[in-house]
C-alpha cells in the first residue's frame, strides 16, 4: 500500500514537472506580458499543485501532508492576486495587450481550429 502510494507520488511529481516545463515554454514563446502571465499563473500553479500532491502522498505523516497542501493553497492565493496586480500595473503604465483583431499573416482563419 505504502509502496503504491510512493509510486503514485512519483507519477504526480513527474506530471507536475511537465506542467512547469510547459509554463516556462509559454513564458518564452508568448508575445506580451499579459499572455506570459497566463503561462505563469495557470500552468505553474497546476504543476506546483501536482508536485505538492505527489509529495503529500509520500509524506511521513498527515501533518506533513497538510503542510504541502498548505504551501499550494498559499501559492494559489499569492499568484492569483499577484497576476492581477502585475496586469493592472502594466495596463496603467500604458502597455496595451496584443489582440487578435486581424488574423496574423501566417494563418488563414481567425477561429481556433480545435475546440
Amino acid at each position, binding site marked *: 500500500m505504502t509502496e503504491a502510494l510512493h509510486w503514485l507520488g512519483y507519477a504526480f511529481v513527474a506530471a507536475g514537472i*511537465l*506542467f512547469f516545463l*510547459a*509554463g516556462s*515554454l*509559454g513564458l518564452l*514563446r*508568448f*508575445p506580451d506580458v*499579459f*499572455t506570459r*502571465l*497566463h*503561462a505563469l*499563473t*495557470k*500552468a505553474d*500553479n*497546476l*504543476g506546483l*499543485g501536482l508536485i505538492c500532491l505527489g509529495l503529500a502522498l509520500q509524506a511521513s*505523516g*498527515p*501533518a*506533513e501532508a*497538510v*503542510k504541502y497542501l*498548505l504551501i499550494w493553497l498559499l501559492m*494559489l*492565493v499569492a*499568484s*492569483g*492576486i499577484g*497576476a*492581477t496586480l502585475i*496586469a*493592472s500595473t502594466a*495596463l496603467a503604465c500604458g502597455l496595451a*495587450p*496584443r*489582440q*487578435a483583431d486581424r488574423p*496574423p499573416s*501566417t*494563418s488563414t482563419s*481567425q*477561429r*481556433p481550429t480545435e*475546440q
Partner: protein
Amino acid sequence: MSIRHWQAWAWRLAILSVLWWAISGGDPASWAWGVPAIVAAAVLMPTFNWHLRPMALLLLIPHALWLALRGGLEVAWLACRPSLNLNTRVVEHPWHYLPEGPAQLFMASLINLVPGTLALRLASGSLQVHVLNLHDDTPASLVRLERRVAALFGIAIDKET
C-alpha cells in the same frame, strides 16, 4: 456576545490550531508555544464583516480545482503546440450579481483560475478580462462563475440571464 460572535471565534481558533499542527509537524511539545501563538493570532486577526456559506464553499472547492486543471492543461497545450496562433482578446465582463467589495475581489482572483482568463482591471460597473484564447462560451462561463461566487457570499440572484 451573540452566538454568531462565538461561532466566529471557534472557527478562527480551530483553523489556526490546524495550521499550527501542520506547521509544527504534530509534535506535542510544540503546543507550549503553539497555544499562546494561536490565541495571539486569533486576537490580532482583522475581523471580517462578511460570512461565507459553508455548503457553497464545499461545492466551490472541487469546481475551482477542476477549473485549475483545465486552465493549466489549456495553457500548457497552447504553449507547446507548434503554431502560436492565439485568439487573444480583452473582454468586459459586466457585473450581474455581485456588489462592490470583497465579493468582486474574490471573483477577480478566481478568474485567474478559469481556463485562459486573467483579471486586468476592476472597474465600478465591470471587470476587464484578458482572454488568452477566446472561445464562444467564455463570456457565459464567466457569468456562471459569478453566480457561484454570489452563492458563496449568500447574495440573492435575480433570475435574468
